[in-house]
């Protein structure tokens, strides 16, 4: 299979699931959590690039350690979540530049689809398919939690369990996104499709569909354009998504 096809299939799969899950992130007012998670991934990506092991694993490992670190600080101190996120943001970036010199950090920061291997493709397809089914299953419950946690709980929804599942799903997708768009822009793949969909949807079905379509189409077009130009795919994917967003503003309901 050619490198181009590999990255195209990976990109579309990730675009679909990021758009789908993003539609929950936007409504859960947790839109920005994908950002810090991406930055948490940076040191792991840097290590993976430096020691040449799988970037996905590196990213996932450092997200995991970082998330436990944040959780620990949140429990042990009274520091606000915003401050913790700021702290993590900066230290994640700093640490990765110490591991990886800045002139070699491009792949970590904005992604490099030429690094996608057949193993990555398999991993991506298995993870995105599993997560798609999972998110589909918890979707209506997550919406109910968003409307009111108390209401959801009375309806028998285990709020803590679903929030945890949801966070794990986000962390996994962020780790997958890294090769595609790098550690700096992971949040955009969640937020921009969902925000575009929000502009043009009147109900939940339209909303999730539109978000999924914008997500996958942006990845598809970004990778296609990068093949015929000298630009890297990551920034192109995000730019295409932004153009979609601007387009939806015109048709805003």
């Amino acid at each position, binding site marked *: 299979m050619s490198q181009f096809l590999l990255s195209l299939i990976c990109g579309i799969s990730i675009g679909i699931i990021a758009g789908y899950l993003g539609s929950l992130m936007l409504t859960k007012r947790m839109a920005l959590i994908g950002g810090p998670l991406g930055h948490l991934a940076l040191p792991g990506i840097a290590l993976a690039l430096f020691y040449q092991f799988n970037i996905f694993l590196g990213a996932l490992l450092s997200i995991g350690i970082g998330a436990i670190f944040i959780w620990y600080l949140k429990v042990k101190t009274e520091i606000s979540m915003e401050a913790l996120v700021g702290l993590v943001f900066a230290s994640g970036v700093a640490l990765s530049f110490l591991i990886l010199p800045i002139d070699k950090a491009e792949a970590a920061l904005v992604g490099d689809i030429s690094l996608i291997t057949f193993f990555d493709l398999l991993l991506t397809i298995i993870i995105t398919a599993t997560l798609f089914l999972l998110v589909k299953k918890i979707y*209506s419950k997550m919406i*109910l939690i968003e409307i009111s946690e*108390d209401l959801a709980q009375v309806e028998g929804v285990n709020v803590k369990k679903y929030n945890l599942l949801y966070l794990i799903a986000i962390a996994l997708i962020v780790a997958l996104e890294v090769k595609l768009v790098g550690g700096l822009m992971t949040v955009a793949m969640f937020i921009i499709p969902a925000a575009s969909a929000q502009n043009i949807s*009147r*109900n*939940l079905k339209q909303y999730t569909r539109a978000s999924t379509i914008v997500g996958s189409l942006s990845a598809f077009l970004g990778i296609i354009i990068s093949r015929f130009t000298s630009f890297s795919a990551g920034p192109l994917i995000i730019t295409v998504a932004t153009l979609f967003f601007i387009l939806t503003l015109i048709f805003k309901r």
Partner: protein
Amino acid sequence: MEEILKVKNLFVELEGEKIIEDLSFVVKKGEILTILGPNGSGKTVLLKTLLGLIPFKKGKIVWKDQIKIGYLPQGLTPVKIKSLPLSVKDFFQLKQKNEKEIERVLNLVEIRSQILEKRLGHLSSGQFQRVLVAWVLIDNPDVLIFDEPTTGIDVGGEQTIYSLLYRFWKEKQATVILVTHDLNIVYKYSSNVLCLHKGSLCCYGKPQQILTPQSLEKLYGTEIKFYKHIH
């Protein structure tokens, strides 16, 4: 009448602070119990504890077996979910309800089914609250627990909500536990009133006995004029 709920020597603490202290009461089938008390007296905490949303420290809460509870929390407004592209129909479908059931319950709260395609966050406060009531009623609960269901609604809308609830209560022989500040409503509909003051039982009885200037002053710490209307 059979007992639906029995609360005995209930103690609730939140972050080390005592919220409910040594509270005991019984709710019987078909009763409308109003919980009255100033802000911060523990009314909402009590409701949430009864629902199992907040753990309690000591005491007993015993619901009758196999009872279905419908709950309307406090402070849910359209503004809070404005950004959510959720139609009224989607909202009911979160409970996996079909159109026939939705229509039946919308009739009950006197709302036309054209509203189904509208976005939940775009409704007026009055419509929104009625939709919420319908959402709770659709499961045909045996017990309704409503926490200030008319906050943010004008007087007319408020009357409508309460008369709808009253009708459901009458038809279904439901049991209602209600928090409200509206003394007229308390007087008109309640079978019993339970007053909470700093988490303890301050008075309990029929509204005619409770809604006197003396006991209201004891409860709210200031003179309250309440005019009994003759209907």
